[in-house]
């Protein structure tokens, strides 16, 4: 049962344009969401996060939007750069004692020069 879903396995964007990566979740107990970037043969690198009490968080070129009623979040990267090409994972955690992350299936972003 995939509780966190990234329905687009891949996305191709031109350099300088906006990249929008989407993520849907099913568990209403999730209270914190994170985005990780992963290159092959490396560990996931933390990008940005958002608490369920917020609907937007921005850090430089990266902005995460959360729509709790739709159980949907998205990561916007603008402007996109070729170095952004990687697999992006959405992850979520439940409130309470557990701190384990539930990952989505990932989206491969290719930014074309």
């Amino acid at each position: 049962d995939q509780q966190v879903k990234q329905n687009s396995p891949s996305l191709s964007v031109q350099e300088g344009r906006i990249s929008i990566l989407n993520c849907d979740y099913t568990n209403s107990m999730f209270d914190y969401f994170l985005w990780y970037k992963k290159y092959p043969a490396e560990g996931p690198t933390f990008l940005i996060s958002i608490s369920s009490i917020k609907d937007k968080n921005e850090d430089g070129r990266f902005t995460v939007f959360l729509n709790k009623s739709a159980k949907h979040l998205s990561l916007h990267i603008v402007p996109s750069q070729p170095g952004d090409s990687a697999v992006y994972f959405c992850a979520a955690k439940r409130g309470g004692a557990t701190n384990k992350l539930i990952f989505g299936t990932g989206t491969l972003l290719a930014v074309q020069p």
Partner: protein
Amino acid sequence: AAGVIQSPRHLIKEKRETATLKCYPIPRHDTVYWYQQGPGQDPQFLISFYEKMQSDKGSIPDRFSAQQFSDYHSELNMSSLELGDSALYFCASSLAGTPLYNEQFFGPGTRLTVL
């Protein structure tokens, strides 16, 4: 800044052998997490430790065990290895009791290949 260190980076074992993976968290981080990522799959949570005590358990086989030591480093012990155990094993760490506790920082992973 110092990151999470994992060793070895690559490991090749035969079926039914044992393996030990090590994780050194970011200095002063007191919580360690282990994840397994199979080929083409998303990382799956195995187990976590806080202050040397197991804090959460996920889909970790009974053949696997783990512990956290007084210096906060952690070891994942895997016995009776099976072909299906071939995967990337990631360790992550975070610092409890701070606003950053929710943000887990990952190591580079250990690629385990079971032949």
